[in-house]
């Protein structure tokens, strides 16, 4: 299911001015047609302090195996799991918008909330 990202209005720009939004430029084509390569999106870094991520939301996360790489993906599923010590934890399954079948069998597996930088709430360009 594709969910469009709304264009940033005055309110979003005002929130960016008071540092409640972060800007990210999208590189690559895996999120087309929702986000084309070169799109600039606004991220709400505090979105998941009050509520859990929901399916179909678009998030920017730190790559689990490449700390310097930030990736933008859609949340395909939210899983409640247990850590090794038995405490509950939330894991996200992330998906590209148009994954090319067979291009690479590797995926990085579920992503913990600690790697989520925030929710994509609007797009400037």
């Amino acid at each position, binding site marked *: 299911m594709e969910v469009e990202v709304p*264009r*940033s*209005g*005055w309110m979003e*720009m005002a929130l*960016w001015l008071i540092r409640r939004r*972060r*800007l*990210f*430029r*999208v*590189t*690559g*084509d*895996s*999120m087309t047609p929702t*986000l084309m*390569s070169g799109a*600039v*999106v606004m991220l709400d870094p505090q979105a998941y302090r009050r509520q859990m991520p929901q399916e179909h939301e678009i998030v*920017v996360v730190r*790559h*689990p*195996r*490449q700390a310097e*790489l*930030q*990736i*933008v*993906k859609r949340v395909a599923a939210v899983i409640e799991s247990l850590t090794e010590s038995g405490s509950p934890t939330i894991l996200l399954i992330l998906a*590209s918008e*148009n*994954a*090319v079948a067979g*291009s*690479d*069998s*590797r*995926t*990085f597996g579920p992503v913990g909330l600690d790697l989520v930088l925030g929710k994509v709430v609007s797009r*400037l*360009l």
Partner: protein
Amino acid sequence: MFQEAIAKLIARTAVDTASAHCDGPCGVYDPASARIAAEAALSMTQKIIDLGPAESADHNTYGRFVTIKEQQAHLAKEELLILWTDYFKPEHLEQYPDLHDKFWNAAKLCSAVKQGVDVDAANDLMAAIEDIHNVYWATKGRDVAYYVAA
């Protein structure tokens, strides 16, 4: 439109990037995954030979061994193809002009191991994967010792 112009101005300040590349960009490759599958196929090849002629061996066991051998040989081929097409770049080919031959031969050996009960082919496949192991880690500038599980 005024709002559009402001949006463009703000967008210019975007310095962080969020990658949306088609491949899962984990960048994690290791010929070890092909080696493990090839080694399993070699082991099953040997076990099939040790079982003796098909007509005297337990049919279920024989069938299982053949199935596992074929699955593992196929898996080894898949792992090699992923490494070949997704990791290796043109600059590696300049450095190792016989790179394509190495992978092509190794993939052919996977087919031979899958199709027959051929210990020589299975051993040749292991040798081919060791060769690819050495090339792969050399391109990463790392000295990683080759080993087998058995």
